[in-house]
């Protein structure tokens, strides 16, 4: 019985390092995804049609493609076009640009929720397109889009497990190492489950905090 817990103590540094890697990669990917998703959603509403088609194509492709394929293309296909990125960078950009397609759809539904009349009133007050987004649309839609955004970030955290396949030393990869070195099964996977749960719970709590702040 003592031995059972000993393994956890022994492998705590490895597992916590994995947790930290998962956390920072997901944090950066989420930020990138939100910014790129907002940009996509804004481009989706411009008058220039070819740009809109490009945005639609991007979103459709990303939503139809398994994340693993996208990561393989970036990581193993990148060097053939002179794009040599380390695994963590591929992780951030891969997860970020992948999530951007989903965030873009969330922003788009948010934009659509604002009554047309309010936008016309803003145009008559002389506001430019970007000013209308910043001062009229975004503040109102945050209440609406925060829950699905948080949900999407939680999915991102869980999907980040695939980064283990492209050798990123994140939580799943380190859990596998734990298994391989000790032939234990229960302790590594229970630890991984608890640590993922902690991370997801932290994101959910952050979401609740943001939700309270954006209410008006």
């Amino acid at each position, binding site marked *: 019985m003592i031995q059972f817990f000993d393994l956890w103590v022994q492998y705590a540094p490895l597992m916590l390092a994995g947790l930290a890697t998962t956390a920072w990669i997901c944090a950066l990917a989420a930020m990138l995804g939100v910014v790129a998703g907002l940009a996509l959603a804004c481009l989706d509403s411009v008058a220039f049609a070819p740009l809109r088609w490009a945005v639609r194509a991007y979103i459709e492709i990303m939503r139809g493609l398994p994340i693993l394929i996208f990561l393989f293309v970036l990581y193993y296909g990148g060097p053939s076009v002179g794009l040599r990125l380390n695994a963590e960078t591929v992780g951030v950009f891969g997860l970020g640009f992948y999530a951007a397609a989903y965030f873009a759809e969330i922003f788009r539904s948010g934009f659509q929720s604002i*009554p047309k*009349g*309010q936008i*016309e*009133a*803003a*145009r*008559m*007050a*002389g*506001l*430019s*397109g970007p*000013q209308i987004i910043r*001062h*009229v649309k975004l*503040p*109102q839609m945050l209440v609406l889009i925060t829950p699905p955004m948080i949900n999407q970030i939680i999915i991102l955290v869980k999907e980040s497990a695939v980064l283990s396949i492209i050798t990123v030393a994140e939580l799943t990869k380190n859990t596998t190492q734990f298994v391989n070195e000790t032939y234990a099964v229960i302790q590594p996977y229970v630890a991984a489950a608890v640590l993922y749960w902690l991370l997801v719970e932290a994101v959910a709590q952050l979401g609740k905090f943001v939700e309270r702040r954006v209410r*008006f």
Partner: protein
Amino acid sequence: MATQPTIRIRDLTKEFGTFSALSGISLDINPSEVVCIIGPSGSGKSTLLRCTSFLEEYTSGEVEIEGRLLGYRRTASGLVRESEQNIDAVRRNVGMVFQHFNLWPHMTVLGNVTLGLRLTKHVPRAKAQEQGRRALAKVGLENFSDRYPSQLSGGQQQRVGIARALAMEPHVILFDEPTSALDPQLVGEVLDTMKQLAKEGITMVVVTHEMGFAAQVADRVVFMDGGKIIEQGPPAKLFNDPQSPRLQEFLDTWKSRNMLFQADGRSPGTAEEGARP
């Protein structure tokens, strides 16, 4: 120099697909004039205001605001769509009040009234708030600046809508049925506010079904039907001596409905009594 009209509309047409919502509208609005536009529902009144503010692109013809073409640029090969920035510049002096108020619900009353000042006229916050409070005082809402729109009655919300337009110090304000969404007992306060503005010499174009208001306040009444201006003139003339059968019919319908309302205890005033004070 002869005074140029504030708004000059020539041969304006607007088509939605194959449907003609406006066909060949020509109309001048002169400085300090109050023009009321009446007509049956679907006659193109809103579309006319929306083309005059370029919330809707017009199909052909011209709209000029104080001598500047709105929405398009004249080139050798005809009219070319103008950039958003230049459209904003031309309609800078045009204000609009909407049927459904269209206030921004996430901002206080003062926030609604000062947003345009701060963002597009780059008035510093303190000065914008001072101007905003002055505009609110004009509509009798100086004590409501920290409320949110949802905490106000419909009539108060529409007065905020008017203050929001006023704060920008426009040279003309377009009103699209400003009282149609209000409960009958709230109509009066909004009309009183508008009367006050008319007295101050603000140029106004008002689409309305309030014949009493039109009769009392308008310098000119324009009757539209089927996307055309059928008849226009001073209210006394238009209401008491309509020339076209369609206007006659429109006024008759209005009068019979009005009698029903009066039986209901509501007294909006009749065209005749307002026309000759």
